[in-house]
Structures are given as C-alpha cells and as structure tokens.
C-alpha cells in the first residue's frame, strides 16, 4: 500500500508556534493538547476554548433534486429543515449499519454535510454511488477550514469579531457572515455540550480568522483546545464517536440514535432493515457507565454481569468534571437498565461500575 503523508490543516503553523503536542489522527496532523487536557477541558466547560476541527469533512449537495436525495441517503428528516437550520443525522447501509454520523445544514442553494475526518473518502464514495435525480455532489473537505469556539463565554468572544447578530442564531441554526473580515458560515453547534459556535471558512483565510479570534479572546483568557479535551468533553455528554461507539456493524437503534432515525419518513437507505430491527427489538444497546473506584475504562475492555461477558467498552476516559472513570459500551439486553451493576475487566482485574443515565455531566448548556 502506498504510504500517504498526513494532511495539515490551515492552522498547523499556529499549533506548532504554541508548542502543541501534535499527533496523527485520521490522516491529519492534529494537536492533541496544548498545555494539559484537564486545563483545556475546564476552559471549555467554564470559560471559552477554541478547537481546530478542520479535519472534519465537508460534502455539498446541490441541484433541483437535492432535498429528495439528501432525504434518501440520510436517516433524519431533512424535509423538516428550514434554510439556515442544521440537524444531526447519519448515513446507513442497506443492512442498517452506520456509514457515518454527520451534521446536515440546509443552506440557501445547497445542503452541506459535515462528516468525520476518517470517513471523508468513504462517505463521498458512498454518497456518489447512490446518486439519484439531478444533483451535484462535491467534496470540499480539503479547501475548508473549521474552528469551534465553545464554552459559556463563546458568544461574548465571537460577537467581537463578526457582523452577525449572534444572539439571533438559535441552537442548531446557522448564518452566513463575516468573521474577522472573512466570509464564513457560523452555526450554533458543537461537540462539547456547552454553548458555542462552529465557523467554516475557505482554508486560505483560516489563519486570519484564528488570529482575530485569539486577539478578541485575550480578555476572556480563551484557550486553544486539542483533540484530547475534545474527546473528554464529548464523552461527558455521551456524544458518540464514530469508529469507537459506532461503525458499520452497529445500527443507529443500537447506538442510542433512535431520536434521529425517522422510520416513517419517505424511503431512505437502511429503512427496511431498521424497521425490522425496531419491530424485533435490539439485542444490545450502547450504555453509559461510571466506575465505582478509581480505575479508568479503556476501549476493548470486557463488560461482565454476574461473571458472564455481556459486552465491551467502546470509549473510556477519566472525566475531568466528575473526577472518575467513565465509559460507553455495548451491552446485551436485558442488562442495559440504568443502575445495573457491571464488572469492567481492567487489564485482567475486575472493577465495579454501574450503568448511569446520560449525560455524565449534567450542567452543560445543551443536553
């Protein structure tokens, strides 16, 4: 196989200059931390942090049949979207397994899919191979920069650098405007559970937008945040991560995404399989659990109930907010009720845990 060198985002030089620890993630050289995962996590929860999320992919769908096509390849109901509105959704295979999860934006003359970095090519190929009607599909992932500004003070910082009236942008809505003098799409969305914005701009203007937000954020002690804290923040909210908590072998119904699976809408890929699974009932479910002691669960650890293996951990970390180990994992029914006592096998040693009702962190702006 040909060795591909990792891609760099428009903000790579900014990360280097700040002394970030850089790792390869999904084919991109990304900052995992700038100073400390815990400090960056706290900035996101209680103040404001800025994340380079340019590794995320962007695919645009245009044309007279765009809405019909979007509704055919995604599982949520895109017909419910007004112009400017966004929705969390997913792509499924015919058998109901997940191709990816994504955010769908309905914009003035097109739809925008924001997909996971590791799945950009796979998703694009899947979408193109299912093309129907008069639509134009474009992968603009590598020409687009994306920043997330998240935390209770996100609006105060962002309002200083944009001509948009941010208080008028509701949760999961977006607007086109200027950020630091640069044309950008700004949405009130994120992956942290806190108030905040995601900003999309042409890659070449990325550094200018970064510098402008850093400058405006000084007064608020805005911190750059790496992928390490992005993971702890999302996990505390029980936001699934594709590749960990779901993949082509899991369905949205198993992954706790029934709320975006609109089985009764018009035809979509995977509909039949998912309807059948709903009728028959899922055999396993993605659950959230907390450790009783100070052990930290990690992906792949076995989950036992009464000494018998009932599943495995898919995500696990130390929660900086709860100051204990938390995790997600698939567990066979009927052992999926909250309160169920679990044993997590931590490197061969049994450790006690219990299923809890998500989110782990109850004080986020959005949950």
């Amino acid at each position, binding site marked *: 196989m040909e060795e591909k060198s990792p891609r760099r985002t428009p903000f790579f030089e900014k990360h280097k200059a700040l002394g970030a620890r850089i790792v390869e993630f999904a084919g991109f050289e990304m900052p995992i931390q700038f100073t400390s*995962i815990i400090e960056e996590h706290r900035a996101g929860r209680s103040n404001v942090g800025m994340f380079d999320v340019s590794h995320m992919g962007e695919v645009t769908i245009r044309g007279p049949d765009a809405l019909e096509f979007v509704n055919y390849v995604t599982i949520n109901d895109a017909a419910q979207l007004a112009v400017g509105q966004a929705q969390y959704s997913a792509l499924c295979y015919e058998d109901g397994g997940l191709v990816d999860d994504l955010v769908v934006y309905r914009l003035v003359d097109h739809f925008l899919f924001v997909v996971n970095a590791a799945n950009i090519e796979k998703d694009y190929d899947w979408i193109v191979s299912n093309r129907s009607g008069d639509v134009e599909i474009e992968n603009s992932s590598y020409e687009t920069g994306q920043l997330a500004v998240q935390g209770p003070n996100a609006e105060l910082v962002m309002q200083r650098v944009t001509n948009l009236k941010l208080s008028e942008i509701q949760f999961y809505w977006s607007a086109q405007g200027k950020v630091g003098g640069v044309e950008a799409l700004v949405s009130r969305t994120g992956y942290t559970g806190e108030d905040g914005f995601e900003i999309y701009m042409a890659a070449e203007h990325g550094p200018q937008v970064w510098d402008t937000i850093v400058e405006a954020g000084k007064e608020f002690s805005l911190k750059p945040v790496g992928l390490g804290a992005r993971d*702890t923040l999302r996990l505390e909210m029980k936001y699934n991560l594709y590749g960990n908590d779901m993949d082509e072998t899991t369905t949205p119904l198993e992954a706790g995404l029934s709320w975006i699976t609109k089985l009764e809408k018009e035809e979509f890929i995977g509909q039949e399989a998912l309807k059948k699974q709903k009728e028959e009932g899922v055999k396993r479910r993605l659950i959230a659990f907390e450790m009783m002691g*100070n052990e930290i669960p990690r992906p792949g650890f076995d989950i036992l109930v009464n000494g018998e293996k009932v599943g495995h951990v898919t995500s696990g*970390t130390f929660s900086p907010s709860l100051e204990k180990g938390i995790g997600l994992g698939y567990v066979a029914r009927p052992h999926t009720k909250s309160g169920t006592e679990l044993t997590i096998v931590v*490197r061969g040693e049994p450790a006690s845990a219990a299923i809890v009702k998500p989110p782990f962190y109850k004080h986020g702006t959005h949950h």
Partner: protein
Amino acid sequence: MIPDGLKYTKTHEWVRVDGTEVTCGITDHAQSELGDVVFVELPEKGRVIKREEAFGTIESVKAVSDLYAPVGGTVSDTNRLLGETPETINKDPYGDGWLVKISISGQGELEHLMSAEEYGKLIGEG
C-alpha cells in the same frame, strides 16, 4: 530537565541512590509525554520485584503505561500522596512525585542504569 545526581533507565524511570535504599520515579520527559496523570497503581510494601519487571501502572487522561522496576529488590515504601493527588507526578516528577522506595539486593542492581548524560542523549536533549 535531567538532574545530574540521578540514574536513569531507557523506560524513563529515575533512581536516587541512598546506601542500599533507592527512590524511584518517572522522568520529566516521561510525565510530559504522558500528560495529566490521573491514576497510579503501585506495588504493596514488602513485595519483592525483579529488575525490569512491570510493577505498576500509571494512567493519564489519554493512556495507560506500565512502570518498570529500574532495580531489583524489596519495596520498602510507596508514595501515598499519589492516591489523592496523582498530578504531583506532573508538577514535581523528581521530588514529591516519587513513586516507590526499593531496598536493593546488591550493588549489582545499579550497574545497568544510565547517567544523566546518557539519558539526555536517549531522549535527544543535552
């Protein structure tokens, strides 16, 4: 930061020799690579350990690593402070962030250790 008076291993532990008892910890380089330490598992006092044996684990938010015994001997003390404040390892890896004390079985146990200069070369510093 590689203090001169200490001995080192290629697995990034340090050793301070005081007669037949040595104090061990992980190096500044190791704590920096790990990131925020949130959990440490250390051997019981009195346990006999062999050189290079995995005798404990250290976990950061992102990852878990084994701790390897830099010398063989008997564990004579462990740092109880780390149960409550494991982040001490990040803040003071060569001081309050020490891990265990080991009574060595003989001076031969020290022969395999590196000097500060050798360790510096290993990690590309100094």
